[in-house]
């Protein structure tokens, strides 16, 4: 989800099931077509604010640790319409990607600082601090850790006064499909929290669609 340009402040000081070397197994709640809704807290020193957010998974390639989708921010103050962005995700599978980001201005310290915000990360922390978690087997872990990076605005121009310079540290729960995330951009408010739940779009149950590219 985009955030307002120029809300600069330094990141705060760090705060804080053994997931058993293979990729996370497929989780049907994280498959293409699945929708999530919730909020992103964009509070700053000046005011408390949360934007409603909808996310839809549009592509998933576990072999390459790749996930992508769209994110819609609904009540963005400066925008006339909901703002939709396209994001690409790196799944931390210790094969394609580790817990260390190694780009996007995120140091290993920034990484640890954000990952430790997720309670489910605590069992992994000591391993991750050594080498980003390369030795971990996450195939049976009930949580899938990811980084989501917005790539472009789908329905508004880049001159909309919003930025997508940062990225999200994301933790997905395979059991109930809930998603927690923290936005990281050295030039934006720290630890903007993203909270999403799996939605069933008015149904009495869960529905699954699929497509295939050739």
């Amino acid at each position, binding site marked *: 989800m985009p955030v307002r340009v120029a809300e600069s402040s330094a990141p705060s000081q760090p705060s804080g099931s053994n997931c058993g070397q293979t990729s996370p*197994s*497929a*989780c*049907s709640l994280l498959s293409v*077509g699945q929708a999530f809704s919730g909020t992103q807290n964009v509070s700053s020193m000046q005011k408390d604010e949360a934007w409603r957010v909808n996310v*839809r998974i*549009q*592509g998933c390639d576990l072999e390459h640790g790749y996930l*992508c989708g*769209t994110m819609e921010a609904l009540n963005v103050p400066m925008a006339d319409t909901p703002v939709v962005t*396209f994001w*690409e995700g790196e799944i931390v599978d210790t094969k394609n990607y580790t817990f260390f980001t190694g780009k996007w201005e995120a140091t290993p310290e920034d990484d640890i600082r954000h990952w430790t915000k997720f309670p489910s990360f605590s069992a992994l922390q000591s391993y991750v601090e050594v080498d980003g978690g390369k030795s971990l087997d996450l*195939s*049976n872990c*009930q949580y899938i850790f990811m980084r989501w990076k917005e*790539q*472009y605005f*789908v329905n508004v121009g880049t001159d909309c006064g919003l930025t997508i310079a940062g990225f999200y540290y994301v933790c997905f729960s*395979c*059991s109930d499909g809930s998603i927690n995330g923290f936005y990281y951009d050295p030039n934006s408010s720290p630890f903007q929290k993203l909270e999403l739940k799996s939605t*069933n*779009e*008015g*149904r*009495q*149950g*869960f*529905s*699954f*669609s*699929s*497509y*295939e*590219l*050739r």
Partner: protein
Amino acid sequence: MPSSASASVSASVSVSASASSTTTTTSGAHSDLLTRLTSSESEVQLKALRELKNRIIGNRTKKLSFIKLGLVPPVAAILASKAQVQAQAQAQAHHESNLLVQSAAALGSFACGFDAGVRAVLDAGVFPNLFLLLSHPDDKVVDAGARSLRMIYQSKLAPKCDFLQEKNMEFLLSLLNSENENVTGLGASIIIHSCETTAEQKALCHAGVVKKLISLLEGSLSQRDNSLESLATVMKNNVEAVSEFVGSESGRALSSVIELTKDRYPRTRLLASMCLIVIRNTSACYLQDIGIKTKLVHLLLELHDDPGQVGDEAPFAFSSLISEKPDLQKLAFEANAIDKLYNHLQKSQLYPKRFQGILLALADLCSKLESCRSRFLSLQALNLVSDALTHDSSDVRTAACMCLRCVSRSIKNLCAGNFLNEMIVPPLVRLLDDPSTSVQVAAISVIGNIAVDFTMRRSLFVQCGGVKQLVQLSKSMDSTVRLNALWALRNMMFLADNVFKEGIFMEFTASSLASVICDPEPFVQEQALALIRNLVDGCVKAVDLVFTEDGMILDAVGRQLQNASTDEIWIQGMYVLSNVASGTEFHKEAVMHQLIPQEDNGTQSFILKFLQSNESQLRTAAVWAIVNLTFPSSPGSFSRLVKLHSAGIVSQIKSMVHDPCPDVKLRVRTALGQFTTFGDCST
């Protein structure tokens, strides 16, 4: 090479030919030629042969016109009448040889690069007589016969040589062992043309052909080229032949082919690289060195600059080098391949074969790597490829579709709506009517990909009549067309809004949908069910569509789940039921009706079989259906749970609590959690 040899022969007679053509009208000259070719005077025949040959060289229009006038049979008759004459006085023999040389050369010219010419020569029955010339005492006659036969063997129409017959193999070896360069070249041409099966490749290896071909690598330019091409033919997909070649002379044969990639002649460089590509594609353990891979990429890209045949063939060789190999595609990307191919594509009046090759090479480059697709799109190459969709050549149209298909595998660009536009969709939809089935299928494949457009501009397909045509094609007699049409419609249905879904449904009708679910081909059934699965996803109202006409679609799904025999069909069918079961009470009860038959005839519900399947995705789909049927906030969930319990489904779910698949295990826990909200009834 054969064509240049003929050209040199013709040079000596060009003056008389041009003089002749200035003094007679064209049709007059034709009938005059026919008269002279059938003259009883051999001197007249000889002059006529020379004139004929001179006039048709490199001129397809003339060749066709002379074939229509029936000039091939008299030429064949001259050759046939002289081919078997043996002992003669020397002067006469010289004259007869000239007639043989000229008639063979004329026939070769008719056949050179022109299938209609090859057909006319073969129809004249002169093919066996040309082989007789190979044992003629006069070397010039042997040369002419061999050249002419090689031109015929360059066509797909030439008869195949059956190497599995001993006498044919002996004959081939005699050709390869000849001192005459044209004769060894003929041997190579026969191998290139005729060797197709693994059994033929093995027979050639066992007869020592690989060793002979390796020795020819040391020969003349033409022998080297012939040898390289034949070696590639014998080794293609034949691990045994590759192993014999690579191990031969302690690797010297392989080294000499690698060395030939630096040869001064572009054709030799191309053929050497093709030989190496065959080796690598057949046995991935060879030529893994990054240096040789990079060299091949750069060499083949450089050979695209050749204005002739080498440049026409280079893109195909490049494709076979990079196809399905992301590491080589990455190297090609780093070598600026997208930009280089795009520059060639920008040239006007591209020869169709070259145009096709470049499009296919771009398709292979963009088949896997997003970096390649991004570069392709940033160059505006899409405009040129969409223009190619209306090219006269069906091969070019097909290649343009394949290129678009590979580029459109990018979800990032599909989400940006970069493909669903007026420049691409209308010409693609028109190709659905193309007379060539391969173009049709290729066009459907592109539509299938770009139909997954996430910006919801799919109505463009409706406006162009694309949906109507796809629905028609899904009832085609050709199962590949049906499969692809259903697959495209399935993708179009993915996350579509209800109005769009209803539009497709109305176009299709419930009875047609029910019948494609029961198509005779399992892979068509699977796509049909995947389409229905997407139809009943999203807005609950969409689920009602499968209940029209007395629920015949849902009944058809139930029958397939009972009768089909592949996991893929079961998975899609089970997701149809699961999605329907996420709807209203009425929908859930209808699914119960499919799962638990009313009459207790002792048959086990198919869902029990699916819950016990070894395929985790099928178990997942089945458990989701149970989760939906017992969804806590639905009023009828308790009574359904009781029925599921009676049918043994609840106890089956309970036994899956330690399922080896994490996803299944979690879904089972969800189901069990829901069961407990209803108390002990399930125990």
